[in-house]
C-alpha cells in the first residue's frame, strides 16, 4: 500500500506531453495560415453545391470549418478538406478540376505537421474572422471578374 513515485526522468517525459502544440508561430507563418484559410474558403465558394441555397453560402462554409476542425484536431488537413466539401455538397469531379483547390491541397501537403495543426486550430477557433477575410476576398474577386467582363 503506497503511492507510486515519479522520478525526474519520468517527470520530463510526462511534462513533454503538456507542451502547448499551439506554439508561438512567427508572424510570417501566422500570415501564411490566414492566407491558406482564405484560399480554401474561396475554393469552397466556387464549389458550393448546386442543391443548396446560395443565400446560406457563408453560414454553410462557417459550419463546415467549425465542424471539420472539431473532427481533425490531429492536423489531418486532407480529411479537413474532405469534410468541408461534403458539408457544402460539392461535386467531387468539380473539386478535382478546381485549380485553386488543387493548389491548396498541394500547398498543405508540403507543410509539416505543426503547421497543419496550426491551420486547423486557426479555422476552428477563429471561424468568424476567417469568414470575414474570405468574404472580403470573394467580393473583390467578383468585382474583378465584373470589371474584366466590361
Amino acid at each position, binding site marked *: 500500500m503506497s503511492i507510486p513515485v*515519479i522520478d525526474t526522468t519520468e517527470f520530463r517525459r510526462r*511534462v513533454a506531453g503538456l507542451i502547448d502544440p499551439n506554439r508561438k508561430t512567427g508572424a510570417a507563418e501566422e500570415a501564411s495560415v490566414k492566407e491558406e484559410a482564405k484560399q480554401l474558403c474561396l475554393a469552397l465558394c466556387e464549389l458550393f453545391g448546386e442543391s443548396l441555397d446560395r443565400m446560406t453560402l457563408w453560414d454553410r462554409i462557417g459550419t463546415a470549418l467549425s465542424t471539420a476542425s472539431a473532427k481533425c484536431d490531429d492536423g489531418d488537413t486532407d480529411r479537413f478538406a474532405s469534410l468541408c466539401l461534403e458539408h457544402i455538397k460539392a461535386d467531387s469531379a468539380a473539386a478535382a478540376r478546381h485549380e485553386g483547390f488543387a493548389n491548396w491541397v498541394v500547398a498543405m501537403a508540403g507543410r509539416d505537421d505543426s503547421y497543419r495543426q496550426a491551420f486547423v486550430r486557426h479555422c476552428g477557433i477563429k471561424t468568424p474572422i476567417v469568414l470575414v477575410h474570405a468574404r472580403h476576398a470573394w467580393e473583390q474577386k467578383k468585382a474583378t471578374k465584373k470589371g474584366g467582363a466590361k
Partner: protein
Amino acid sequence: MSEHYSIRLWSEALSPITHMKGVEGNEALIARQPIDTPAGKRWVPFLSGNALRHRLIREPGALWLIEMLRLKGELTLKQFNFLNHGGNLTESTGREDTARIAEMQELFPLLRLLGGSLPDQILKGSLLPWPGMLLCEENRQRLPLSDGFELPVESLRPAEHYVEGFQYTRGDGAKRPDWYDHETRDPDAKSNLMIFSGQQVIAGAVFIHGFDIPHGSELELGALLHSLSLWQETGGTIGGMGARGHGRLNTHILGAAAGHADAVAGYVEHVAANAERCRQWIAAVFAAKEPKPKSKKAAAEASDA
C-alpha cells in the same frame, strides 16, 4: 529529533474535475484563483488547500483511525466531528491545558498534523498544504516543484485549454404512467425534466500540489502517507459530482520515496500499540465537566432562600 518533511505530488485528472465555486445563472463555475502573469492577471483553476487537506488526509486518516480504535458507531457526534471534521469550540470558557495537548501529540500523529477544536480548546496542527496548482503556462513560475523537477523551456498549454463545459439531464417519470399511479399526478403539472450544466477541468489536466510538515516526526510523515494511500485506494476523488464519475485523480509522489514504507509501518504500529490510551483520551476530553463550585455569595443566597 524533528525534521522538515516535504511531499510533492503530481495528480492527473482521470475524469472531469468539478471543484466548484459559485454559479453564474444556471451554470456552475469551477474554482479559480487570480495569478499575476507577465501578460496580466489571469484566473486559473485550482484545487483549494482546504479541500485537499480534508479529502486526502483528514477524512481517510480519521475514518481508518476510528476503525482501528474500534470506535465506529461508539463515538458521540461531537467526538466524530472532532476526528473527521476538526470539531468546534462550543464552550464559552476556553482553556489551555498543556498536559492534554502533550498527550494528544504523543498519541495521535494524525491530529498533531491536522489539529482540531475540542469543545473548550483549540489544538493547532502542523501540516501546511499547498493548493492544487494546474500545470499550465500561467503557473510556470510558482509551481511547488523540488530541485531537479524542471519545466521545459517551451510553453506549456494555457489554463483555458483545460476548461470545458458539461451538461446533464435529470429525467422525469411522468411520461411512463405504467410505472406509477397516475391518479396521483397533478394533471396541470408540467414535465419536471431538468437540464443542468457547468464548467469542468478536463481529464488529462495535471495539478501539482503537496504538503510540508515543519519540525515533524517520522510518525507524522507516516500518518500523512498512510492517509494518502487510503485516499487513492478508495477512489482518490476531489471536488463534487463523484456520483457522476467526476473528480478522479491519479496521484504520484514526485521524487524519492526512501523511508516512506517504514514511516507508514511505524505509524500503523504506533496506533495499534496505543489504541487503549487513545480511546481513554478521547473519552476524557469529551467527558461532561463537573459543575463549578458556587461562589460564597451564591451559596449564602441559596441557604437564605
